[in-house]
């Protein structure tokens, strides 16, 4: 790990200066006038409506399916079961999810049958007429229990599963989705622990959370000859194309994905479910088929944030120097691993328990485990949210054990030669002095996050001497991709922003892009735009005929060191008679590099804070014996505007990022520190330490007063 900051190429001051001007969203007018067409706004001629039957049981053998009544319902055009589709498995990396269950169901909500009908109502009615007999099997809901001898095995054929790239690396226990150990050897770790004056260990737990976007998952699939067309809410069109091809065997070059506008993502829109069944319904009926999930399905049949249990152990010297750290992180992976995008099938964020510090001996073991619940998925900083809550709570607990100031303890352990980290920490600490009096406290959290990488390309084309377009295959899930590309192109070409049009094209007409995830878009597509536009600017000097174009594909190598430091500090008051926590004010310090879209940047940080506030205080997708207990966003509560405290945003514009003009990733940044900062503040306010998210009023009250008597 190196934290040395490589000097970035200098940019013309006037080019970067244009970024200071608040941006106007290029697609904004389309959105506010309702002209932007989201997936659910498409109605190709002859379109049918799909509805799916979900399993009502958590683990069972399917003994019979009777679809005759559904088939006879007027308006029904096709009914499919797992036997009609065959043994077709899909997934973002590991293909372990059947399009429709054949002989067994593994979670409540898993797709068992599907209907295409002339109306949505007929499709839904038909689904209810399908009769399925289930023979219950023992289910397992606790990941640690799933690893014990005699636990139900969810995937007896796991060894035979393929990935989107071929065969799979074998795993040990059949209920393990993925496992990765990172860091020094056990012997080195124990030696380092032996040199510590104090060893502390704590266990933290975090719940499932839904991403909370407003537009539910949806898709339309149709065939024109051999070409399969898809419009969907998937934010990684090229990824979806690859997954569809891998699952169905339809050639990848005969699948065209047209995604453009997406109504919110927060990590959840990289995973597709009903695109696959729509493929088979469209192929069977020869007509376009559209599926749009209800919110009941959205909450119970997609892929929320993984619940986690994290056991952290740290050895320190009496002066506060960290000498050894280990973490055993267990994520509840749910019934399928197919929602995870990486080849390790874990959440790498689980390694970030102490990512902001220099610890000479560190060892992490991160596992994802199969259980009979809905699949674990990605959500804004997957794994890091869990790890940073645990790690930054742990650091404050260590400070308490040693009698040291938590900010001083952090400062002592910062990476060497990294003034940015110290600046971020000090700026956050300076804003919030320690208040006096019981019931009021401040808390802080520090973190370091690496941005995403991967491949992506654009074509920058001069249509005339002062008219340009940039062609991208990226979908914009609301984070401002289109505007970012336009501004980077304008700066690199040295022209006004209104001279640039960003054109979003399908996977058939655009260069590959890995999709809007892992805060990678500005880093990769911004970079590609910058390189292509800079090259084009050079060629324009001698160009006499138009169009002139430059294509550029950038691949940011996995594991490249592009860190950003962030800190969150809050002041809370705690009502000791009710346990209610109120965040009175907050500050978020972000080492953002060069900011390209100032309004979107601020929006990401403020929205990120609100997102973190939800994780800290209220969000939990309750699942009982595999049954999701929330049916709407009326049950699954998200924070709203009146819940937000006054928030100060401090941006440190170091210009040292690897993105264009020195930009750094910010999309999954504002939320990370909020839960531990609040937990730390609560302890300072009333001496209560909560190690389970969310930090509910009842948990505070119970810690103060004991369990309430039932009667």
């Amino acid at each position, binding site marked *: 790990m190196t934290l040395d900051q490589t000097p970035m190429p200098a940019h013309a001051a006037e080019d970067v200066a244009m970024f200071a001007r608040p941006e106007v969203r290029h697609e904004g007018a389309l959105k506010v006038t309702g002209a932007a067409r989201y997936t659910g706004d498409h109605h190709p001629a002859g379109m049918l409506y799909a509805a799916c039957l979900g399993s009502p049981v958590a683990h069972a053998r399917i003994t019979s399916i009777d679809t005759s009544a559904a088939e006879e319902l007027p308006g029904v055009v096709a009914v499919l079961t797992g036997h009609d589709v065959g043994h077709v498995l899909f997934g973002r990396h590991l293909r372990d999810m059947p399009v429709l269950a054949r002989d067994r169901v593994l979670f409540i909500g898993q797709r068992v049958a599907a209907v295409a009908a002339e*109306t949505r*109502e007929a499709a*839904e*009615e038909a689904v209810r007429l399908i009769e399925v007999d289930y023979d219950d099997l023992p289910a397992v809901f606790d990941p640690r229990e799933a690893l014990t001898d005699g636990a139900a095995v969810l995937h007896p054929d796991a060894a035979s599963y393929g990935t989107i790239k071929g065969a799979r690396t074998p795993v040990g226990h059949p209920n393990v989705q993925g496992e990765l150990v990172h860091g020094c050897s056990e012997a080195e770790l124990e030696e380092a622990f032996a040199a510590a004056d104090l060893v502390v260990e704590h266990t933290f737990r975090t719940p499932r959370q839904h991403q909370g976007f407003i537009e539910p998952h949806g898709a339309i699939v149709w065939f024109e000859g051999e070409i399969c067309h898809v419009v969907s809410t998937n934010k990684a069109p090229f990824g979806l194309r690859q997954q569809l091809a891998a699952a169905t065997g339809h050639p990848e070059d005969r699948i065209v994905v047209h995604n453009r506008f997406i109504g919110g993502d927060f990590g959840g829109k990289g995973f597709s479910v009903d695109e696959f069944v729509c493929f088979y319904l469209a192929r069977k009926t020869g007509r376009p088929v559209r599926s749009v999930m*209800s*919110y*009941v399905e959205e909450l119970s049949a997609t892929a929320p944030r993984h619940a986690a249990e994290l056991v952290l152990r740290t050895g320190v010297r009496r002066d506060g120097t960290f000498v050894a750290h280990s973490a055993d992180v267990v994520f509840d992976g749910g019934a399928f691993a197919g929602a995870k995008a990486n080849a390790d099938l874990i959440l790498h964020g689980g390694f970030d328990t102490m990512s902001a510090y220099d610890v000479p001996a560190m060892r992490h073991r991160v596992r994802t485990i199969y259980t009979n619940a809905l699949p674990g998925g990605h959500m804004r900083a997957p794994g890091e949210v869990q790890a940073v809550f645990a790690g930054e709570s742990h650091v404050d607990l260590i400070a308490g054990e040693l009698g040291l100031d938590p900010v001083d303890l952090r400062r002592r352990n910062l990476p060497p030669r990294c003034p940015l980290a110290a600046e971020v920490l000090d700026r956050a600490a300076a804003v919030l002095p320690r208040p006096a009096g019981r019931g009021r406290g401040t808390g802080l959290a520090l973190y370091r996050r690496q941005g995403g990488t991967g491949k992506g390309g654009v074509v920058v084309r001069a249509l005339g001497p002062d008219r340009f377009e940039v062609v991208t295959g990226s979908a914009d899930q609301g984070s401002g991709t289109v505007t970012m590309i336009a501004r980077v192109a304008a700066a690199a070409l040295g022209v006004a922003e209104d001279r640039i049009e960003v054109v979003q094209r399908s996977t058939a007409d655009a260069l590959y892009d890995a999709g809007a995830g892992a805060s990678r878009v500005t880093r990769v597509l911004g970079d590609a735009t910058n390189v292509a536009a800079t090259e084009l600017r050079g060629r324009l000097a001698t160009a006499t005929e138009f169009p002139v174009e430059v294509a550029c594909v950038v691949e940011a190598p996995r594991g490249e060191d592009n860190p950003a430091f962030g800190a969150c500090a809050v002041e809370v008051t705690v009502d000791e*008679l*009710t*346990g*209610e*926590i109120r965040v009175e004010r907050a500050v978020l310090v972000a080492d953002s590099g060069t900011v390209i879209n100032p309004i979107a940047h601020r929006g990401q940080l403020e929205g990120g804070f609100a997102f973190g506030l939800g994780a800290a*205080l*209220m969000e*939990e997708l*309750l699942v009982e014996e595999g049954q999701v*207990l*929330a*049916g*709407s966003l*009326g*049950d699954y*509560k*998200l*924070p*709203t505007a*009146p*819940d937000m405290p006054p928030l100060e945003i401090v941006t440190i514009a170091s210009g040292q990022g690897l993105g264009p003009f020195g930009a750094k990733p910010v999309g999954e940044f504002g939320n990370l520190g909020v839960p531990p900062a609040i937990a730390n503040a609560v302890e300072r306010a009333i001496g209560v330490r909560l190690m389970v998210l969310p930090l*509910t*009023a*009842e948990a505070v*009250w*119970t810690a103060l*007063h004991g*369990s*309430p*008597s*039932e*009667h």
Partner: protein
Amino acid sequence: MLLFDYHRPTTVAETAALMAELGEDAELLAGGTSLMNLARLGLAEPAHVIALADVGELGGLDATPDGGLQLGATTTIRHVETSPLVRGRAPGLAEACGHVATVRIRNQATVGGSLVHADPNQDLPPMLMVHDALARITGPNGDRSVPVAELFLGFFETVVQPEEILHSIVVPPPARGFRAGYLKFLPRTKDDYSTVAVAVGLTAEEGRVTAARIAVAGGGSTPLRCTAAERALVGTIPGEATALAEAAALVREALDPISDARGSSGYKREMARVCTTRLLRRLGTEDAG
């Protein structure tokens, strides 16, 4: 959600005739903030929906000659909340309305809907109970009046019969020296149902409580009046610490809430006690309106 036939009668008589004709396949629709959610979740599947929006007799918000109020069943919560008449005659009612969900929902949700839906977490029922409000119900055999305190039978169940319509709510004129307040405990987000909520009405003369009303939302399968706690307050000095602590403890004992994501049963009972204490203390320091 299933498709349904949509009917728009313009009079109560026409509505009643439709209800008689369509029977149990029909549901009445006022603001729709509850019915449409239930329909989307598949918990209500009406084949016919009879919209009350055009039934003028069911709307309105009027002063009664005796100094009280009449709230039409289809009057929106927002209308009640912002009405100068309500603020003058029953400020506690305006206060409780201001705590219902969000402005967007208050513009849609109705007084009648929030009562006949009979979700024990609704904000209006406890406040109407402390005002001794009456529900006027119209049916094939004429009109009848039921105290709001006796309207609820259980979760989502009221005494309003399938062939009857909740017509309006009558809020009697407050006694001299009456004051009311509402405390909604929302520890998660401001846009939520309460964990528990308490409404209190106190009438005081010459420094002594002559009548008390305490009602709780979220304390059981129905909104609930806590009569033992009310009795304990009569004759005490408003806001006096021992008396209010005793009454608040009796409120806790009167409740049997369900455990859910908003809190365990025991916690909700404790919070009802804390909220009652705080509200009684607040009302003890306020002048009668």
